[in-house]
């Protein structure tokens, strides 16, 4: 070892001591960090689940992540092929069920949602929720021939009888685009309810049924009311708005072959009751609503059993003869088979004054649910083959289509869509997020209240902070990774804590997630992104009104020239980029039933689709923040603003969050 300076024994001892102290201090610091962020006494320190695995983009992310197709909705072409929208694959898959093979993938970009075809199977239409457009597909050449811009976050569609007009439900803008197909342009917008989601045309007349997913604005602490919007395709007008009382998350829609009844899948939340127990439908029940297309009468009946929930009914299809209905339960991994004549007979026999009671009868399903067919994880879109012999089920997080014999209920196997067999960490979390298997009696999944990671627009009464007290608005889970603390009270420092021990104790009422499952679940939640904000201006200057609104948001003086204290300016507590300072504040919105009046200052990005507002959801609109719930200017000085100025302020707020490609 000549030439290498030799270290004295004393120096080595010092270095060793420093090293030991350093490692010990580092370990102590990391332990503290892990305990603080997780809210638990973690046994080991592992940076990877929190800081590496949740990353879904970047040069190295592909090492631990994978891309999946995520089949969502289905359509059968008269020639027997099956069309599948791949929600995360950005494509329309053309599948040959006989050969169990994917024939083609037609790129449609963004986030494909629904697919329909014309009667002859020559043309398919695919909505793209991310790109706000409809792709027109020539099925002969399997190419996209055009795209048609529509409203924001388009979902379900239906053609009119002439197949010259396409009606598209725009979830993001709460309206229906009327598309003139010969010209390839959306020529009209019809106002819908809240979050229009599915569309079906009547087989016997020009009625187009549009099912809205979320509740329309209701009085604070009133049950949800979700709308079914009926459109006359001939006149292109809304002809009736039907109420689904006490129901929401209405996603699946079918119309019987005789055109007499629309079958709608629904959830019936119990958000007004304290969440003290979840057995026997105390949190959410799931069912179908029968809409009489002539009279508008609605009968709601449950699909649950007395002691078993069938969470998240997503789609419903009918056998060609209309005698069987199939409902996919996305959270329960089951398809319910319904005897439609029995269902309709019961609905007809229920007197009007007994409708509310029947709607809560957990034993009624014995009369019309004739089978429960197990599926793979997360069954969503359904379709029945043209001959009526096979039911196709899109198993979204399994990336496959299951085939079920309609007559016998037997499993005929699956058609894999070619996604990686490996389940990534984030994908595991996505599967858990969409499963109700982790709640007592399968009552709900995370998705039940956070569809696509967003919000169900309801307010809840949770148990640990008192019954009838501390009502909280359910917020979106999108883009949460840098917005700690969590909960309106700001008590949870991390999502691990939010989704951990107390979540199991007070909500799911069963054993908590394992540490690995919890980490996967949080990784998935941290990967969630907002949809493109339809009100944002991509990289360009704000519209004139929004620019005026920004000036108001940042103003330091009232209209009459008085200086606004810095603490009372909007931008002080809501600074960019997330428009929150991450601190607690009392802005005078505390109710008598609130234990504390300071709340976590909310993020203001992507506000348009996240109402109602305030910690307890009492404000149905942004305007109400200032016109009803800020009498003393404690929530920012705003009472001097004119109506026009408030409009500008609202326009500006709705642009926050930015547009995406």
């Amino acid at each position, binding site marked *: 070892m000549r030439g290498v300076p030799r270290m004295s024994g004393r120096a080595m001892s010092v270095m060793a001591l420093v090293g030991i102290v350093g490692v010990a201090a580092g370990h102590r610091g990391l332990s503290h960090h892990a305990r603080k962020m997780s809210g638990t006494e973690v046994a080991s320190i592992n940076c990877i689940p929190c800081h590496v695995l949740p990353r879904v983009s970047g040069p190295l992310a592909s090492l631990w992540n994978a891309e999946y197709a995520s089949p969502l909705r289905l359509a059968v072409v008269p020639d027997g092929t099956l069309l599948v929208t791949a929600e995360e694959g950005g494509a329309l898959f053309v599948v040959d069920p006989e050969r169990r093979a994917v024939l083609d993938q037609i790129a449609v970009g963004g986030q494909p949602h629904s697919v329909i075809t014309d009667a002859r199977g020559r043309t398919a239409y695919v909505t793209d929720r991310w790109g706000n457009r409809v792709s027109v597909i020539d099925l002969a050449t399997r190419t996209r021939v055009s795209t048609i811009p529509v409203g924001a976050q388009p979902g379900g569609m239906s053609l009119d009888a002439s197949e010259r007009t396409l009606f598209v439900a725009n979830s993001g803008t709460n309206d229906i685009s009327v598309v003139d197909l010969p010209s390839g342009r959306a020529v009209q917008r019809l106002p819908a309810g809240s979050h229009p989601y599915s569309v079906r045309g009547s087989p016997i007349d020009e009625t187009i049924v549009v099912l809205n997913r979320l509740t329309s604005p209701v009085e604070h602490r009133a049950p949800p009311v979700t709308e079914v919007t009926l459109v006359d395709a001939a006149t292109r007008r809304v002809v009736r708005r039907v109420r689904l009382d006490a129901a929401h998350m209405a996603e699946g829609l079918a119309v019987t072959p005789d055109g007499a009844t629309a079958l709608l899948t629904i959830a*019936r939340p119990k958000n007004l009751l304290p969440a003290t127990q979840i057995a026997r439908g105390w949190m959410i029940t799931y069912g179908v609503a029968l809409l009489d297309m002539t009279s508008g009468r609605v009968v709601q009946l449950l699909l649950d059993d007395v002691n078993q929930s069938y969470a998240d009914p997503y789609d419903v299809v009918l056998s060609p003869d209309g005698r069987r209905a199939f409902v996919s339960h996305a959270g329960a991994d089951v398809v319910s088979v319904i005897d439609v004549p029995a269902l309709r007979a019961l609905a007809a026999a229920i007197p009007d004054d007994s409708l509310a009671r029947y709607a809560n*009868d957990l034993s009624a399903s014995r009369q019309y649910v004739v089978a429960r067919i197990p599926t793979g994880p997360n069954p969503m879109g359904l379709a029945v083959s043209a001959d009526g012999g096979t039911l196709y089920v899109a198993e979204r997080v399994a990336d496959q289509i299951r085939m079920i014999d309609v007559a016998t209920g037997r499993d005929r196997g699956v058609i894999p869509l070619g996604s990686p067999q490996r389940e990534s960490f984030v994908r595991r979390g996505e599967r858990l997020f969409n499963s109700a298997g982790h709640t007592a009696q399968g009552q709900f999944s995370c998705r039940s209240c956070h569809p696509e990671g967003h919000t169900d627009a309801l307010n809840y009464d949770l148990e640990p902070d008192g019954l009838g007290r501390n009502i909280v608005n359910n917020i979106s889970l999108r883009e949460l990774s840098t917005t700690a603390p969590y909960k309106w009270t700001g008590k949870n420092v991390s999502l691990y804590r939010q989704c951990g021990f107390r979540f199991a104790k007070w909500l799911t009422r069963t054993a908590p997630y394992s540490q690995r499952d919890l980490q996967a679940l949080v990784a998935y939640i941290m990967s969630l992104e907002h949809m493109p904000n339809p009100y944002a201006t991509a990289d360009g200057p704000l519209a004139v009104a929004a620019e005026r609104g920004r000036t108001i948001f940042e103003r330091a003086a009232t209209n009459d020239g008085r200086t606004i204290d810095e603490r009372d300016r909007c931008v002080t507590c809501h600074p960019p980029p997330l428009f929150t300072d991450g601190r607690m504040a009392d802005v005078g919105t505390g109710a008598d039933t609130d234990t504390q009046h300071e709340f976590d200052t909310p993020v203001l990005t992507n506000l348009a689709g996240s109402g109602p507002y305030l910690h307890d959801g009492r404000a149905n609109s942004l305007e109400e923040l200032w016109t009803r719930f800020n009498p003393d200017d404690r929530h920012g000085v705003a009472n001097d603003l004119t109506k026009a100025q408030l409009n500008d302020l609202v326009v500006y707020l709705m642009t926050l969050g930015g547009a995406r490609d």
Partner: protein
Amino acid sequence: MTRLLASLLLVAAVGAAVIVGRGDSEAQAEWVLLTVERGATSPVRTRVVAQSAVGEPLVELSEGLVEARGPSPAPDGRRVVFAGRQADEDPWSLWEVDVTGDGLHEIATDREAREPAYADHGRVVYSGRVDDGWALFVRGPSGTDRLTYRPGDQRWPAVLATGRIVFADRGPEDDAPRRYLWMQQDGTGAELLIAGTPGTHLVGPVREVAPNTVRFLERAEDGTVAARVVDIARLDAGQRMEPPAAPQVGLLAGADRVVDAVTVSARPVPPAPISVVDPAKAKGVLFGIDAGLSDRTPNPSAGPAVALRVVSTDGQLGTLPLAADGSYFVEVPADRPLRLETLDASGQIVRGPSDWLWVRPNESRGCVGCHEPRTLAPPNRVPLALEEGPVQLPGGSR
């Protein structure tokens, strides 16, 4: 009377043995636990043995005990717990042993204990003698906790795969029918599960034969015993089945016979919800959405219900007014038998008293109505009574 009870127990045991006999879709099981009646002893004694296959030697599990019965296997498929006693004058207690016969040891209890079953993570739930009958207890690393607080007998606990405990309950009256109730593993949320078929009496424990499916025995008035299988998800009337023949074991001494057989197979540990019970608290709360919602006929001479009275075994705890929508919200002493009855303006009982119920410390318990149909989910509305906070009862303290 004693002979009658003994006969019934024997019928129950044989029936249970039949229910869980070897043809019971448990082909992968390694061991069968047998309660064997010693025919040569007087009075008749039972012992617990294990057998790995028909014709294989019997392994004594209750060696050294004068009497033992009711073996129950742990989810790991290795350990077994049963009730036994070392001498005639000893009270029955709990014993744990490896299925191979090794490591027999007593699980200490502070009272006579019977009918043990494994709950989550090594805890054992069992029936224990109390002053006025039998109640259920759970024994775990942190000690023993009493779970049930109804007058009468709570016996034969069975832990379902979902973690819930199903048990037999019978009131203190001589003619009280036996019913199956279920609850969480911390004793919260207890409610009626199966009332039984009219004209029959429930005998013995339930056995879970498939997820959400239990079997139990019913004895008709003419003494015939049949098995019934009930889907507890749908909670319908279930299917009646004829009990098959007793299992074949072989190798028994001349007069010995099997009165109970339980197949041992590894299974997942039942999940246990994180308990909301806080032993430091002495109370829980009850709230009801509409006390007027009931399937019981109201007292025809009474007026509309305007109040609710809470009663315990030792008298009235207090009365509270019903809110305009029929709702109520009341703080009640925990771990104490309670009954509710609705009153009209003159204090006459409109409906009631209710069945006995209890809340655990810190439990919040909601009801749709008062003795409403059990198949009814609650309506989604804010009970007015919640706006005022819980009523404190004058007699509500321990």
